[in-house]
């Protein structure tokens, strides 16, 4: 297995699920920001291409004990991405400062091995050529290339904004690797009217995510698979944290492997 270097800058998110109302502003902004082609019919959710998808979670209990929580799922930008090692043509990689898993669609041959490998379904395939009917193509952003059919794409943490922020820092004689938090924010972060998404450099103590990720209420999705996601979630509700990962009945939330570790040591 490939080894991924330690980045000095490692961008990540902390999403407060207790603040998400599931309105979809993040999804809408993401599509417009990243030139995702609109879909005439997106009711088949297995064919609906969205880099960021909002799930509706349930505590699994029947009415009236039931509770609902919304969970936005971008690409986790895993520290140990399962998709990168499997790509036969290096179309996806995790090798640039910032620790974002890159997806270069002109290199992608569309084998979909990465999609099979990603447990978060963060990767989407262009089943058909993108189409912007009428004058909708006028609203295409100059920042993100359009993708043809037959390639895989995914959330890039609005990586073009990182590039622009770095350029601006260079032009102003600042260090492009020590960006202040507000210099680089993703479209979904900016959009969220509830401030549920916090974005920044996980390694930088000046950024809010640095503290937030250490909260006792923080958890990551499917952590025990070893993907080491750079997206953290917060919830004060235990059932939500427990839904973040698979647990055996007797295991305690947040400490899945404790029994196993105890045995091995």
């Amino acid at each position: 297995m490939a080894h991924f270097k330690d980045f000095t800058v490692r961008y990540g998110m902390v999403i407060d699920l207790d603040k998400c109302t599931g309105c979809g502003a993040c999804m809408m902004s993401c599509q417009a920001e990243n030139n995702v082609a609109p879909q005439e019919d997106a009711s088949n959710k297995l064919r609906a291409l969205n880099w960021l998808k909002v799930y509706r979670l349930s505590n699994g209990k029947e009415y009236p004990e039931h509770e609902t929580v919304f969970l936005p799922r971008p690409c986790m930008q895993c520290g140990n991405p399962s998709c990168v090692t499997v790509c036969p043509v290096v179309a996806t990689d995790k090798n640039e400062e910032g620790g974002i898993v890159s997806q270069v669609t002109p290199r992608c041959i569309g084998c979909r091995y990465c999609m099979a490998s990603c447990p978060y379904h963060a990767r989407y395939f262009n089943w058909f050529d993108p189409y912007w009917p009428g004058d909708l193509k006028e609203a295409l952003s100059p920042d993100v290339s359009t993708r043809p059919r037959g390639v895989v794409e995914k959330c890039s943490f609005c990586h073009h904004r990182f590039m622009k922020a770095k350029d601006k820092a260079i032009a102003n004689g600042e260090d492009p690797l020590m960006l202040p938090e507000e210099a680089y924010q993703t479209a979904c972060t900016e959009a969220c009217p509830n401030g549920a998404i916090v974005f920044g450099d996980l390694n930088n103590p000046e950024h809010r995510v640095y503290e937030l990720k250490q909260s006792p209420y923080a958890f990551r999705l499917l952590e025990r698979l070893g993907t080491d996601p750079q997206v953290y979630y917060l919830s004060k509700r235990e059932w939500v944290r427990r839904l973040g990962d698979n647990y055996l009945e007797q295991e305690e939330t947040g400490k899945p492997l404790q029994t196993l570790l105890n045995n091995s040591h």
Partner: protein
Amino acid sequence: MEDKSKEVKPAKSCGCGFGPFLVGLVLALVIGWSVIPSLKLEEKKQPIAFNHTVHIENAGMACEDCHFLREDGTFNGLPDTASCASCHAEAITESEEEKRFINEYVVKGREIRNEWLVYQKQPDNVFFSHAAHSMERCGTCHTEFETTQQLCNVCHLDVASTTEPPVYKENRISTYSVNTMKMPECEACHANPGHYGTTNASNACFVCHK
């Protein structure tokens, strides 16, 4: 392959020796090295036959007057109709091209920036940072560049001394300009381990792709 089979009919070969082999070889080499590559290219002309020399030498303009880095770090690579019109709102020379520019662009409010053909045009998926490739940054170590123009000319055609724009050649299949830098040329610096550490310009995908 088809061209070749047509050539065959005269059957000049006797069937012995290397003769036929050599004829085939030479013919294919000519076709492969010269005919096919030139067939692939389509020549295009710039919208206006812009004369760089006149602007620099006669008008005393500097490169940066039109090609400059904006404050937000983006690069103003091409002048727009408005900036040309700041001098050429009305004809100031006898030039036919100038007249045409004024009539076609200034008067009609057509944006010439959308029409200039860029010899180094990169495809949509490439993010090239002019800010990162500045004289202040590259020139620190690369003292061989005495002027900014020399640095620019590493990638760009040296158009500064031309009196009319070079012909723009576009590959009919790929729609790339022949002068476009391709990835191996970028990698000449980016994949050079010596650069990393000094410039942070690694060869990572997301350094250049968007």
